[in-house]
C-alpha cells in the first residue's frame, strides 16, 4: 500500500512537471538512440571488413559519443533538479522524511529513465533501419549497405544508460540529503557565485590546442598520420573544453572592465548574462563545436572520396589497361625490355584477332629502393629497418623516362636526373656505392607515376643507360643479400575509340594465364576496378552521411536544451529588468545578440578546427588515392556552408522557443 502511495505520488509529480519532463525525456531518448546506432555500426559488416582503420575509428567515435552522453545527461538532470528544489523542499516541510523523498526520487527516476531507455532503444533500432533503407534508396550504390541490429551493442547501450541514470539519481539523493529544507525551498533562486577566471587552465587550453594544430600542420607522413590523427583530435578536444570554460570567462571579464563598452543597454544585459551562466554552458558550447567538426569532417571526406573515385582510378590506372611485370633478381634490364616487347607484340596480335586496336602503348622499367640521405650519400637499407620510415627511391633508365616525360632529357655517363618533393634533400651531387654522380634537377615527376606516390612522396633517380641501372641493383643486392630487390615494369595501353569491354579484359586475362614468359604478369583494367571502387567509396559515403546525421542530432539536442534552460533562467531576470524600465525592444536586441554569440561561437570554432584539420585529413585521403586538393577544398567549403545553414535553421527555431519562454 505504501509503495503504491509513493508511486502514485511520483507519477503525479512527473505529470505536474511535464513542461520540464518533456524536454528531459526527449533528450534522454535521443541520446540513447544516437548511442545505440553508433555502437551498432561497430558490428556492421562493411565497417569490420573494408578497412583496418575503420573499426578503431568507430570505437573512438563511440567513446566520444558515450562521454558526451554522460556529460549531457548530467547537465539536463542538474537543470531539472534546480527547477524542482522548491517542490522537494516543500515535501520535507510538510513532514516527509528524507528517506521518503529519496524513495519518491527513486520511483520517478525508474519510471522516466526506464521509459526513456526503452523508447530510445526502440527509436534507435527503427530509425537505424529506416535511415539505412532511405540512404540506400537515395544513393543507389551498386551494393546496398546492410544494417544489422546488434543485440550485444543494444544491451551495452541499455547498461551504459542505466548506469548514467543511476549516477544522476545518487547525485540527486545526495543533494536532497545534505541540504536542509529551507535552502531547498529557496533552491532555484539561490544566487550562484560569479565564476572565477583561471589563467592557468586558459594557458593549458591554448597549449593543448596549439599542439593539436601543430601536429596537423606539420605531419608529413600519411602512414603515421592515422595514429597522430587521434592524438591531435584528443589535444584539440581538451583545448576546446579548456578554452571555452576558462577563456570565455577571461574575455567576458575583460569586456566588462571596459566601462565605455560595458555600460550600454545591449552589452550590459548580455555580457552579465553570459558571464553568469558560462560555467554550465561553456561545456555545452564546446560539445556543439566538437560535434560540428565531426559532422563536417565525416561528410566532407566521404563525399570527396566518392566524388574523387574517377580521379583515384585515373591515378591508379593511367590507361584503360595495365599490366604489371615482375622479375626475379637475375633478370637484367635488357632482358626485361625484350620480354616486355614480346609480350607487347603478343598482346597486339591477340587484340587484333578479337577485332580491337591497341593505342597509347608505353611501358617503363623501374626499381624501388629504401634508403636514407646522409650528407650527399644515399645509403640503402631494408624497408623494415628502424622506426623511422626511410626514403623511397624509384630508379629508372633514361629511355623509359623520356617515354613518359613531356620534355625528353639527355644524360651522359656521370649524370643522374633527380627529383625530390623535399627541398631539404636537394643536392648538386650524390654518392651511390662510392660512385659520385652529378645531379640534374627536375621539378615534377611524370604524371603517369602519380599512382606510385600515394603513401610517401618518393625520390626519383633516372640513370643515363640500362647498364647503370643493372649495376646499381647488383651493388645493392650484394650489400644487402638477405632482401634482394628486383626490377619491375608497368605496361599501359588503351584501345581505339575506347572500345574496352569486360569481354576484352577477360580475354586478355585468359591469354596471359597460359603463357610461359620468364616474368610474373598481373593484369588489371580500369573498368574492372571501377565498380569495386565505387562500392567501397559509396560505402564510406553512406557511413559519412549517416554519422553526419547522428552528430547533427546530437548538436541539435544540445542547442535545443541549452535554449530552453537558458530561457527559464533568464525569464526572471528579464522580468525584474522590465519592472525597472527595460523595454521590449531593448530586451529583444540584447537577447538576440546574446543568442547570436552563442550561435556563432561554436560554428566559428568548428570552421577553425576544420581549417587546421585540413592538412592531416588531406594526407589521410591520399591513402585512398585522392591527390587533388581542389576537390577536397570545394567539398569542405560546401559542407561547412551547408552545415551552417542547417545550424542556422535550428538556431532560428530554438531561439523562438527561448523568446517565447522569456516573454
Amino acid at each position, binding site marked *: 500500500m505504501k509503495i503504491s502511495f509513493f508511486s502514485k505520488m511520483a507519477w503525479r509529480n512527473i505529470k505536474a512537471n511535464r513542461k520540464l519532463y518533456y524536454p528531459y525525456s526527449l533528450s534522454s531518448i535521443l541520446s540513447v538512440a544516437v548511442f545505440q546506432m553508433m555502437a551498432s555500426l561497430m558490428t556492421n559488416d562493411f565497417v569490420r571488413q573494408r578497412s583496418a582503420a575503420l573499426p578503431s575509428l568507430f570505437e573512438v567515435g563511440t567513446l566520444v559519443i558515450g562521454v558526451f552522453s554522460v556529460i549531457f545527461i548530467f547537465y539536463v538532470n542538474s537543470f531539472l533538479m534546480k527547477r524542482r528544489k522548491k517542490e522537494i523542499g516543500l515535501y520535507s516541510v510538510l513532514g516527509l522524511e528524507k528517506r521518503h523523498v529519496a524513495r519518491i526520487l527513486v520511483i520517478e527516476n525508474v519510471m522516466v529513465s526506464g521509459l526513456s531507455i526503452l523508447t530510445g532503444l526502440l527509436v534507435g533500432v527503427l530509425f537505424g533501419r529506416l535511415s539505412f533503407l532511405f540512404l540506400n534508396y537515395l544513393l543507389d550504390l551498386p551494393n546496398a549497405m546492410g544494417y544489422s541490429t546488434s543485440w550485444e551493442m543494444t544491451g551495452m547501450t541499455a547498461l551504459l544508460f542505466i548506469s548514467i541514470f543511476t549516477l544522476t539519481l545518487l547525485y540527486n539523493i545526495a543533494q536532497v540529503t545534505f541540504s536542509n529544507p529551507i535552502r531547498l525551498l529557496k533552491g532555484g533562486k*539561490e*544566487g*550562484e*557565485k*560569479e565564476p572565477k577566471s583561471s589563467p592557468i587552465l586558459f594557458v593549458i587550453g591554448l597549449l593543448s590546442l596549439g599542439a593539436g594544430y601543430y601536429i596537423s600542420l606539420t605531419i608529413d607522413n600519411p602512414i603515421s598520420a592515422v595514429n597522430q590523427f587521434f592524438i591531435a583530435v584528443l589535444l584539440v578536444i581538451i583545448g576546446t573544453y579548456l578554452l571555452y570554460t576558462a577563456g570565455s570567462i577571461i574575455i567576458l571579464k575583460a569586456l566588462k572592465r571596459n*566601462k*565605455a563598452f560595458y*555600460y*550600454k*543597454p545591449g552589452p*550590459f544585459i548580455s555580457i*552579465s*548574462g553570459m*558571464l*553568469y551562466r558560462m560555467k554550465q554552458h561553456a561545456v555545452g558550447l564546446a560539445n556543439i563545436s566538437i560535434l560540428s567538426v565531426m559532422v563536417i569532417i565525416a561528410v566532407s571526406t566521404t563525399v570527396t572520396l566518392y566524388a574523387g573515385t574517377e580521379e583515384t582510378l585515373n591515378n591508379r590506372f593511367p590507361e584503360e589497361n595495365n599490366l604489371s611485370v615482375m622479375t626475379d633478381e637475375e633478370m637484367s634490364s635488357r632482358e626485361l625490355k625484350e620480354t616486355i616487347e614480346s609480350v607487347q607484340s603478343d598482346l597486339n596480335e591477340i587484340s587484333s584477332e578479337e577485332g580491337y586496336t591497341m593505342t597509347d602503348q608505353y611501358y617503363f622499367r623501374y626499381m624501388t629502393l629504401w634508403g636514407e640521405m646522409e650528407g650527399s650519400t644515399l645509403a640503402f637499407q631494408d624497408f623494415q629497418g628502424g622506426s623511422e620510415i626511410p626514403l623511397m627511391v624509384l630508379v629508372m633508365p633514361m629511355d623509359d623516362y623520356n617515354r613518359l616525360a613531356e620534355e625528353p632529357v639527355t644524360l651522359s655517363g656521370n649524370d643522374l636526373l633527380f627529383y625530390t618533393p623535399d627541398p631539404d634533400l636537394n643536392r648538386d651531387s650524390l654518392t651511390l656505392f662510392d660512385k659520385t654522380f652529378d645531379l640534374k634537377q627536375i621539378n615534377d615527376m611524370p604524371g603517369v607515376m602519380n599512382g606510385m606516390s600515394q603513401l610517401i612522396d618518393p625520390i626519383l633517380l633516372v640513370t643515363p643507360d640500362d647498364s647503370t641501372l643493372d649495376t646499381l641493383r647488383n651493388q645493392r643486392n650484394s650489400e644487402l643479400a638477405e632482401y634482394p630487390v628486383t626490377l619491375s615494369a608497368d605496361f599501359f595501353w588503351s584501345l581505339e575509340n575506347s572500345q574496352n569491354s569486360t569481354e576484352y579484359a577477360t580475354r586478355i586475362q585468359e591469354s596471359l594465364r597460359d603463357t610461359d614468359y620468364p616474368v610474373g604478369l598481373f593484369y588489371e583494367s580500369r573498368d574492372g576496378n571501377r565498380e569495386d571502387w565505387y562500392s567501397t567509396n559509396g560505402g564510406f559515403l553512406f557511413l559519412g552521411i549517416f554519422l553526419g546525421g547522428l552528430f547533427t542530432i546530437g548538436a541539435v539536442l544540445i542547442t535545443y536544451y541549452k535554449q530552453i534552460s537558458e530561457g527559464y533562467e533568464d525569464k526572471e*531576470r528579464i522580468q*525584474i*529588468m*522590465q*519592472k*525597472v*524600465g*527595460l*523595454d*521590449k*525592444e*531593448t530586451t529583444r536586441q540584447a537577447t538576440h545578440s546574446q543568442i547570436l554569440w552563442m550561435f556563432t561561437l561554436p560554428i566559428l570554432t568548428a570552421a577553425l578546427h576544420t581549417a587546421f584539420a585540413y592538412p592531416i585529413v588531406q594526407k589521410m585521403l591520399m591513402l585512398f588515392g585522392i591527390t587533388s586538393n581542389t576537390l577536397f577544398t570545394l567539398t569542405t567549403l560546401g559542407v561547412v556552408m551547408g552545415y551552417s545553414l542547417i545550424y542556422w535553421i535550428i538556431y532560428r527555431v530554438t531561439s523562438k522557443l527561448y523568446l517565447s519562454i522569456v516573454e
Partner: protein
Amino acid sequence: MTFMDVKHIKKIYTSKLGSKGTEALKDVNFAVEKGEFISVMGESGSGKTTLLNILSTLDSATEGEVYLGDQPLSSIKDKEVSRFRREQLGFVFQDFNLLDNFTLKDNILLPLVLSRKSVDEMEKTLQPLVERLGIAHLLHNYPYEVSGGQKQRAAVARALITQPKIILADEPTGALDSKSSQNLMEILQDVHQNGQTILMVTHSARAASYSSRVLFIRDGQVYHELYRGQKDPDVFIDSISKSLLVSSKGRV
C-alpha cells in the same frame, strides 16, 4: 499643488471563463501633493497591491484615471511606458528584485544604463547617493553576499538614481528584521525630507508611522486617512494602531 491625482479608480479581474469578475478596487480617490510621503495601509486582499500596480503602470484600471502632473497614465503609449517607468518612477520591492548576476553597483546603475547615460555621468550620480545610503563600501559585492537591509538600501539607491518624480514602495520592510526595517525607514524619511515624493504600501504600523499621511484601504476603497502633522513617529504610531484596531472590528 496636486502632484498625483487618483480619480475613481476601479479594477475588476475577470477570469478566463468570463462569468463574474472579482472587484479588487471599487472606487479609489485621493491626491498626492508634491513632497508628500504617503503610506497606504490595509489588510491582505484589501486591494493595496492592485492599486500600486496601477500607479506603477504595470497594470491598468478598468475605470477611472491616474494623473501624474497633467499626464493621464492611460495616455502613455505601450512603447513609451518603459521609458516613463524608468525616468519618472522609482521602485522599491518587498523582495528587493536585485539581479544576482550584477554587483550592487551595476544593479543601482541599471536604469541609467538603460537610459544610455554616459559612464562619467553615472559615476558622478552614484557616489554621493551610495555614501548617503551607507553602501559605498559594498559596491563591488554581489547581492547574495550582503544582508537583507543592505540589499534593500541598494534597491532604494536604484530607485533614486534617476531622480524620479515619485517613489513607489511595495512593503519595503516586509522581508527585513526590525533593526534593518527601522534603518530603512529612517533612510526613506531622510529622502523624503530632501523633497522626494514617496508612496508606500505597507502592513506595518511602525513603517507607516514615518510617513506624513496614512491612507487606510478596505474592500477596494479608501475609508480613512490620518495626517502626522508635527507628531513624532512614536506618537503617530498610536493613532495608526487605533485606527487599525477600529477598522478590524468592521466599522470606523
